[in-house]
């Protein structure tokens, strides 16, 4: 079997370059099952996706006569017998392409290599809201499996007729259906030839059980691995077309600054340079990116700070007071409320009040935002590094005053998103510049632009008042979160009297809130919420001189939480001791995207007083595991990336001016930080697959904080735990 790059976001393969005028035609012949990538399968409706698509789906590539918008993905067994899945999701590094292909292959009884994933192309794929929230596998995957099972049922019925053998006496092996005694066979290709069967998913077909799995549940090498190790994988800025111009746009010195005047006469004199000037967009363009950069440097500009900009007194130190200074009314989620806080306080032998916080953080994907716009007839084709190709299509179409189907958005490989590529203005800029020049235009951010325009993880605060009775049982849990949102803040410890208050949103922008744009950062808000809850739990355990693991187990009846805590402790070889024990071992547990994770970290301090994380053990309950190797890889990645927010990542700014500009002053985890990581999913086979791209990043901050306390009794209330903060915390 030919193992070509089945996998790539190969939507740009001319073989798939189908007419987008007529949806039904674009579906082609064969057997097609339409389904929804956004609705959880009935019976497993664990969690509804939080974000709903804004506005009406644009109709994407479907134009008139397209399918109802809730059918936003489809699977086809083509007339050549090949299996193709079309979806508007994108691959940003987390291996969803591989896991999804495994799920389709499983139900259709074909090898992984014979499934092609066509993703993130608005001309070929049905409308999709975007790729975030660890939803690809747990939501879309469940639907895809159902659809593939349904296609299998249809193929078996057709084969039964073809072979005159009842369906129950048939078996499938890699696209060939045969009678059990192998006397007669027919291939998917023979069955699909000349057919045009199109159905919407009914969800009646039975999916494979664990015992039947032959592709799912097995380690799979990522389908995009070969393209990525050979340099063949193309990211947005790797595309180029004849006549293409690299655009370098003049940037303001601060968020909120408005362009007042620009003098581009020097730049315009440079050979090969085109200058585009619009009231809010001034750019130098050239075939050579370095020439464009040099030309931009020659454009003289004047800005004025608009009145809405945050004052320069607001910086990374004063931001917390700024945020707490003028609070909106809180939301009080009903499912996090029980008992009565005053009662709880009365029942407490000891009450604890602490606040926990983190400043702004950048996504800092290795691939900066980029967009390439290529005028095509009266329309525009765009390559964009984005997690949300369809919303981007809508945006660009609106900007250019075109019907959406005139704008084709292709999301090539994305070099890291982590939530930061759900937004970005670069596609609008590229589209405007391409329209202005009539040429293909690439807008590829410099690292400095990337830091400036990051939709930062918000600075945020959590305040907790909690209590325990004399027997060490939780009595009170009053949880207030400011500007982070309450993702992963659910209280899975048993507190009879509890309440949560959510003040301001993670993306609140304005004079009393965030001074610049903020957004979703890998598991938005969850990292702070986990840090806060798990630190507070540890504070109580320490006061009671209880072992932190014991204290947790004593205070939760949540089976899944107990299971991951116990699994992590066992693997670590954890020996109970109250903190601080001097060993530097810390525990934390969390829930995110339907998965439970417990992590145990062991830390030391180096000669400069910096934290060295020696070892991390992580146990994750994520339901059925589709690709165990992929799941471990994501967990390890989460832990390593998480060490950044835990120990070093910190944005510096003054009002709307972002002072952090590049990797020399925004420290990301390095190889020398690599702890011994033992991350593993635990068995939970009667639960559908849950999220895997984010959960394991959530508890790492808390695990390290608790380990630091265990090491020398110093309690950190603000991330990241820099040597300066540790020193300050020692002084109390």
């Amino acid at each position, binding site marked *: 079997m030919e193992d070509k790059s089945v996998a790539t976001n190969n939507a740009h393969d001319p073989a798939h370059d189908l007419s987008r005028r007529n949806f039904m035609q674009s579906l082609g012949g064969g057997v097609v099952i339409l389904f929804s990538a956004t609705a959880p399968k009935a019976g497993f409706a664990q969690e509804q996706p939080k974000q709903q698509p804004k506005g009406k789906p644009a109709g994407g590539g479907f134009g008139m006569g397209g399918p109802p918008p809730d059918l936003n993905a489809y699977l086809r067994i083509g007339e050549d017998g090949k299996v193709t899945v079309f979806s508007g999701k994108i691959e940003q590094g987390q291996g969803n392409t591989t896991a999804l292909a495994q799920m389709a292959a499983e139900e259709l009884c074909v090898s992984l290599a014979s499934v092609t994933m066509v993703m993130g192309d608005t001309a070929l794929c049905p409308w999709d809201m975007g790729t975030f929230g660890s939803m690809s596998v747990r939501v879309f995957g469940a639907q895809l499996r159902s659809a593939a099972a349904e296609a299998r049922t249809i193929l078996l019925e057709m084969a039964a007729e073809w072979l005159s053998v009842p369906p129950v006496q048939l078996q499938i092996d890699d696209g060939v259906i045969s009678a059990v005694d192998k006397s007669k066979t027919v291939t998917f290709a023979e069955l699909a030839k000349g057919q045009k069967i199109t159905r919407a998913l009914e969800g009646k077909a039975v999916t494979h059980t664990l015992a039947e799995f032959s592709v799912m549940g097995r380690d799979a090498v990522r389908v995009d691995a070969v393209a990525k190790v050979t340099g063949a994988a193309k990211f947005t800025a790797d595309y180029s077309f004849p006549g293409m111009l690299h655009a370098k746009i003049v940037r303001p010195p601060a968020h909120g600054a408005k362009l007042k005047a620009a003098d581009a006469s020097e730049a315009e004199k440079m050979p090969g340079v085109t200058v585009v000037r619009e009231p809010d967009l001034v750019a130098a363009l050239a075939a050579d990116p370095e020439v464009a950069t040099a030309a931009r440097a020659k454009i003289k500009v004047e800005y004025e700070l608009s009145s809405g900009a945050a004052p320069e007194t607001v910086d990374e130190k004063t931001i917390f007071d700024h945020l707490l200074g003028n609070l909106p009314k809180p939301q009080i989620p009903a499912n996090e409320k029980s008992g009565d806080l005053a009662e709880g306080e009365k029942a407490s032998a000891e009450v604890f009040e602490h606040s926990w916080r983190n400043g702004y953080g950048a996504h800092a994907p290795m691939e900066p935002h980029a967009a390439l716009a290529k005028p095509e007839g009266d329309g525009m084709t765009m390559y964009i590094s984005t997690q949300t190709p369809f919303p981007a299509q809508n945006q660009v179409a609106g900007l250019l005053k075109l019907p959406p189907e005139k704008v084709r958005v292709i999301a090539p490989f994305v070099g890291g998103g*982590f939530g930061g590529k759900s937004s970005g203005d670069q596609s609008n800029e590229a589209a405007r510049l391409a329209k202005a020049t009539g040429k293909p235009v690439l807008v590829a951010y410099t690292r400095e632009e990337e830091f400036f325009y990051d939709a930062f993880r918000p600075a945020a605060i959590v305040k907790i008042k909690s209590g325990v009775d004399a027997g060490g049982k939780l009595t009170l849990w009053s949880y207030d979160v400011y500007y982070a949102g309450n993702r992963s803040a659910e209280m899975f410890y048993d507190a009879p009297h509890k309440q949560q208050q959510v003040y301001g949103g993670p993306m609140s922008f304005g004079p009393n809130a965030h001074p610049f744009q903020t957004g979703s950062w890998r598991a938005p808000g969850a990292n702070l919420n986990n840090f806060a809850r798990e630190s507070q739990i540890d504070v109580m355990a320490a006061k009671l001189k209880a072992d932190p693991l014991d204290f947790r187990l004593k205070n939760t009846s949540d089976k899944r939480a107990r299971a991951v805590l116990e699994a992590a402790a066992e693997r670590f070889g954890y020996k109970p001791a109250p903190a601080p024990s001097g060993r530097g071992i810390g525990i934390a547990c969390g829930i995110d995207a339907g998965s439970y994770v417990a992590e145990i970290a062991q830390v030391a301090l180096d000669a400069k007083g910096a934290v060295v994380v020696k070892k991390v053990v992580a146990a994750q309950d994520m339901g059925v595991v589709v690709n165990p190797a992929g799941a471990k890889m994501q967990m390890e990645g989460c832990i390593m990336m998480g060490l950044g927010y835990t120990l070093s990542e910190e944005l510096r700014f003054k009002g709307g001016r972002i002072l952090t500009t590049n990797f020399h002053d925004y420290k990301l985890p390095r190889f020398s930080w690599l702890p011994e990581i033992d991350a593993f999913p635990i068995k939970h086979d009667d639960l559908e697959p849950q999220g895997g791209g984010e959960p394991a990043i959530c508890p790492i901050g808390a695990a390290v904080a608790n380990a630091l306390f265990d090491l020398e009794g110093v309690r950190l209330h603000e991330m990241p735990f820099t040597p300066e903060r540790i020193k300050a915390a020692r002084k109390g």
Partner: protein
Amino acid sequence: MTETIRFKLNGQPVTLDTDGDRKLLWVLRTDFGLTGAKYSCGIGVCGACTVVVDDKAVRSCHTAVRDVKDKDVLTIEGLAPDAASGKLHPLQQAFADLGAVQCGFCTPGMIMTAYALLKKNPDVTREQVIAGMENNICRCGAHQRIVQAIESAAGAGKRG
């Protein structure tokens, strides 16, 4: 100032008439269409743009094309000349098999840095791998598997 610059690129002699101050990264990407080397920081701190010049890892975002005159430049595209037929360099194979690749943006730079590391010292220890890769950044956190892949490729090199 336009000058004539000759060097070897992935084994082939090439000649350019160009401004010698231009950075090698942009020459590779724009003039030769070799987009495996990536721009990520532009100031020499991340390693995404790493190529190998005369067996040494070099940050192409920081290297004037004039400086590779008469030298041997190897990029990720030239590492396995028969990649099309499925034959990868042991480092590439190990990165793929061991899952040292997530988003893949840092990958070419990682592999080229590791290539130069193993050229210099085929008997590399884990500590030397970590020290040798220290200045390459991976945002996805693939570090553990990158180290394993380099160790495994080093082992494969020794065996065969």
